[in-house]
């Protein structure tokens, strides 16, 4: 059951016939695997989080975060931090209730990065 806050937050999606309250609940119940934390993967994670995907499974990439992120997720002040730590913290800005899990329910094989990939995955979850 969606909370009042979730109904407000996702109201524009819930209005869609293909989504509705039950579709938004399906999105919130999903855990999507993000395979890489490169720029395309970070943009994919950001848009999945904004769309109301409930959980993400991220790779344990501890390479240094870049100084510039054209995905728009990381801040300049994140430069040099372990990438997965910075990504998790910034994703929480986009979706405070987002969970991080090791096991996933939705694979993202063959899905492009960025909002295009998020759109394809949202569609896949709603059609399942």
């Amino acid at each position, binding site marked *: 059951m969606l909370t009042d806050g979730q109904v407000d937050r*996702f109201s524009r999606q819930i209005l869609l016939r293909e989504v509705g309250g039950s579709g938004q609940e399906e999105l919130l119940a999903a855990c999507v695997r993000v395979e890489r934390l490169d720029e395309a993967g970070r943009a994919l994670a950001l*848009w999945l989080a*904004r769309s109301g995907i409930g959980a993400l499974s991220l790779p344990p990439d501890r390479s240094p975060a870049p100084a*510039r992120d054209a995905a728009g997720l990381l801040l*300049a002040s994140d430069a040099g931090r372990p990438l997965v730590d910075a990504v998790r913290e910034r994703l929480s800005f986009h979706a405070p209730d987002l969970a991080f899990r090791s096991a996933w329910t939705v694979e993202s094989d063959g899905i492009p990065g960025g*909002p295009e990939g998020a759109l394809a995955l949202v569609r896949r979850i709603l059609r399942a």
Partner: protein
Amino acid sequence: MKALLLGAGGLGGPAALSLVAAGVEVTIADPDRVDPTNLSRQIFFGDADVGAPKADTLAHALRERFPLARAQAIDVRFSRDNAAALARGFDLVLDATDNFPTRFLANDVCARLGLPLIHGAALGWLGQVLAIAPGRTPCLRCVFEGEPPVGEVPACAQAGVISPLVGVVGGWMAQAALAIVRDRALGRWANAMRTLDGWSGVERWVPVGRDPLCPACGLAREGNRALDREGAEC
């Protein structure tokens, strides 16, 4: 390159991000405040920003990501009273607003001033981008003639929108802007509107053509443009 971005919301945020990352100076005009219903798709606003001015919040968020970014905010509505004065001095305008009167106002003002305009829209599962180079490509009135009757096309608040679609369309707007001001060779943007049906996943380049009788950019309009430049305001 200096771009005027109308609208700091779902389309404006991703468009501004791509432009700033490419080194474009962006001035963001939006009088609205952040609302909780914005948060599923307006990616530079968080829960703590609810009630804050959108344009200023977006400009700040861009500078947090790119400290050398040239991003300014104007907390005003683009209207008949200020449109020409606001647009003058920019190399290009991006229309990321969500209402027909502003879209056609931006179209007409840019046609009068000879400014390139990027039109973007997203509603439901459908998105579209049209790149308008005055005198070279069709304008919004060539394609759509004019505003639909009030109430005929629902707004986002009534029809809804799927969140990632605005990211795709906003990114396309930035691509079109960079093509139009950098390359001068517009490629497919020259004679087609790019569209996406997010539910089917089908992307199309819909052929469009100039209307010689277009009241905004047609031959009669061009003949009068010299007079317009001498001081007539919209």
